[in-house]
């Protein structure tokens, strides 16, 4: 038997073949289980080879899209941070250089004069707007001249940190502080020397409203927060979520970088957020933008949903297709296996019949001669006893010889039927009317039917085509079948014999009885030689002989039977012989 085993060999690669062992069908018969296993295995394999790459592809795409989209969203954010930083830079640089210019252009003497200081201050306010006050501090830290809304003249700054830093560095920009005015501002200080070599400092403060405007100009959406920090993490501009100016920023400061950078953080409320920031190169500030991740990734989420939907739909479609395909495949396989098995069984049966036929012929022939000897010897014995005048126990011996002769007769009839089964006949083919042959055959059986009060019903179709066949063999066929029918029905039963043209090339003869019928098990064996239900009366050769003859004539036989209801045997004869008249086998 060849099985789809070959499929594994075709793959060629040994490890693969080993891995695919489940392709091989178990050899032991057509158990329904093995098709279930095969179906499951094919299904699993197909699902694996389709779904796994799909999952990998989907995974890669998911990751790629996420990264790509994140970059696409975060890059503009970085650019905004970078640009705004430049604006800040420029703004502070301009203010510092304005102060520096004024200090250089006018000199200590002009500045100390509060009138001219006032004039300069007015010009600066006009030009830049946000200057709040302007003051001159001498080398001892005393504010010697002041213009502005507060009365700060004569204030001593010598103890303050910025005064020293300005002296060391030459210029100074302060963090945002509240100072005396409870108003956030930044101080610029520039140190100069007068003609006498005395150092003095020009100090100007601006309000931080301008800084807030810069932040606002970043054009951020409602869920975002932008603010300025100093290096100690103190808010320099008000933040939407993290506190007012000069409050401490609650989160840890990011590592120092002068390029705009984005990190992911957990914001104060436990949500994931993007933290875009940069340190200023020249000033002690950090510009920071915090964006809610959920907000930023909104387009990604909708895309993710689409991706998942497409993925799920594909998986469902694959499942359905694979299921249907596997089902179809295994069904086809099963069908062809069954067909092949049926053909094989039939072949086997034919083979069995022909070998049994040959065996029977040989046995019958070999046995006939010794039986003939027994027959003659026993006959002679009988003769001697009969003709002897005074034989002791004559009657007894005659009974014995008679029973020997009876047994020999039985042997003889068995061997003759065996030979008939395997007979090599020179068939003479004629065109026969099957109805006529049936009628002829019935003449042998009418007496028996009458005796048992069995009703024989004939339903012959008119104008049937003639069948090319051998009269003697057809008679044997009908005799065997009718004998069986007679044996099956009880007294008073009905046997119906009908003929009809099944198609233009086939004539069908059906013999139907309402007798005892056969069990499915019996039905399976009826064409096997020596299988009989008639006990000692049967030889078990009637139907095998019939089968052999019908097959030899190119016909076919169909049996339908139900236990207790009766049997219908249909014999199909071809109108034309399959290959001339060569029927010997």
């Amino acid at each position, binding site marked *: 038997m060849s099985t789809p085993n070959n499929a594994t060999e075709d793959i060629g690669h040994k490890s693969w073949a080993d891995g695919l062992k489940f392709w091989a069908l178990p050899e032991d018969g057509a158990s329904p289980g093995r098709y279930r296993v095969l179906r499951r295995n094919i299904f699993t394999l197909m699902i694996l080879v389709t779904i796994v790459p799909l999952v990998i592809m989907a995974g890669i795409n998911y990751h790629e899209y996420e990264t790509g989209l994140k970059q696409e969203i975060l890059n503009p954010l970085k650019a905004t941070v970078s640009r705004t930083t430049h604006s800040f830079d420029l703004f502070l640089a301009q203010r510092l250089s304005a102060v520096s210019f004024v200090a250089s252009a006018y000199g200590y003497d002009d500045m100390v004069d509060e009138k001219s200081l006032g004039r300069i201050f007015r010009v600066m306010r006009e030009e830049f707007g946000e200057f709040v006050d302007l003051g001159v501090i001498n080398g001892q830290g005393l504010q010697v001249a002041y213009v502005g809304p507060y009365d700060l003249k004569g204030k001593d700054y010598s103890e303050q940190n910025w005064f020293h830093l300005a002296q060391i560095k030459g210029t100074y920009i302060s963090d945002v502080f509240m100072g005396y005015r409870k108003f956030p501002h930044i101080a610029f200080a520039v140190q100069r020397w007068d003609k006498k070599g005395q150092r003095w400092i020009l100090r100007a403060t601006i309000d931080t409203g301008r800084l807030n405007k810069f932040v606002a100009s970043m054009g951020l959406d409602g869920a975002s927060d932008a603010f300025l920090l100093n290096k100690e993490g103190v808010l320099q501009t008000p933040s939407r979520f993290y506190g007012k100016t000069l409050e401490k920023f609650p989160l840890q400061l990011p590592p120092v970088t002068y390029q705009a950078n984005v990190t992911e953080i957990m914001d104060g409320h436990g949500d994931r957020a993007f933290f875009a920031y940069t340190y200023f190169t020249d000033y002690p500030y950090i510009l920071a933008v915090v964006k809610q991740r959920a907000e930023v990734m909104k387009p990604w989420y909708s895309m993710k949903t689409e991706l998942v939907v497409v993925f799920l739909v594909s998986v469902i479609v694959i499942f359905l297709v694979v299921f249907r395909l596997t089902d179809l495949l295994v069904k086809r396989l099963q069908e062809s296996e069954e067909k092949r098995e049926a053909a094989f069984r039939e072949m086997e049966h034919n083979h069995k019949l022909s070998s049994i036929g040959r065996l029977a012929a040989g046995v019958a022939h070999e046995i006939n001669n010794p039986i003939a000897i*027994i027959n003659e010897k026993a006959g002679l014995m009988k003769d001697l006893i009969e003709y002897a005048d005074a034989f002791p126990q004559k009657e007894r011996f005659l009974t014995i010889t008679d029973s020997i002769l009876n047994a020999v*007769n039985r042997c003889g009839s068995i061997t003759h039927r065996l*030979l008939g089964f395997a007979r090599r006949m020179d068939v003479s083919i004629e065109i026969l009317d099957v109805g006529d042959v049936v009628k002829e055959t019935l003449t042998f059986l009418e007496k028996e039917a009458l005796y048992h009060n069995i009703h024989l019903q004939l339903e012959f179709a008119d104008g049937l085509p003639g069948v090319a066949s051998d009269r003697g063999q057809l008679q044997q066929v009908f005799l065997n079948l009718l004998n069986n029918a007679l044996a099956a029905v009880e007294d008073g039963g009905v046997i119906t014999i009908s003929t009809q043209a099944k198609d233009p090339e086939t004539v069908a003869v059906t013999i139907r009885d309402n007798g005892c019928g056969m069990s499915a098990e019996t039905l399976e064996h009826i064409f096997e030689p020596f299988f009989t239900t008639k006990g000692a009366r049967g030889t078990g050769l009637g139907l095998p002989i019939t089968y052999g003859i019908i097959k030899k004539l190119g016909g076919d036989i169909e049996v339908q039977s139900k236990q207790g209801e009766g049997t219908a045997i249909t014999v199909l004869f071809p109108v034309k012989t399959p290959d001339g008249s060569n029927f010997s086998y």
Partner: protein
Amino acid sequence: MKIRVLLVDDETDFREALAERLEVRRFLVTQASSGDEAIELLKGQEVDVVVLDMLMPGKDGMQTLREIKEIRPLAEIILLTGHGTPGKGVDSIQTGAFNYMTKPANLKELLENIVNAFKRKSEHEERIRRANIRSIEIALKEPDAE
């Protein structure tokens, strides 16, 4: 007059038993164990009925049948065989056998066949005898007519 029967069969047991049974029934039986022996025998003596086995070593039944018909055309021949081949039976009858029987043969049928064969042979001989007589009569009448 006893019917003269020649039994030809290679199975000695069978042949002798059958011969004895026929003798008991007042047949005059001679035996031969092969076709050749039978033909040799027939060259020297006349028999009425030959009971001939179909399957023998050497010459088979059919061959022997043909040769017997050549040397003794009037002898009637009954063929016996262990082989259930009606086709051969038909052939043998066409070749000139009186009948064909299968082994083991029923003695009653065999006897009937032998007797019938003898009757046919007798009728045959009778016809030949009458034909001879007629030809003699014609021969005798002819001179009268002249």
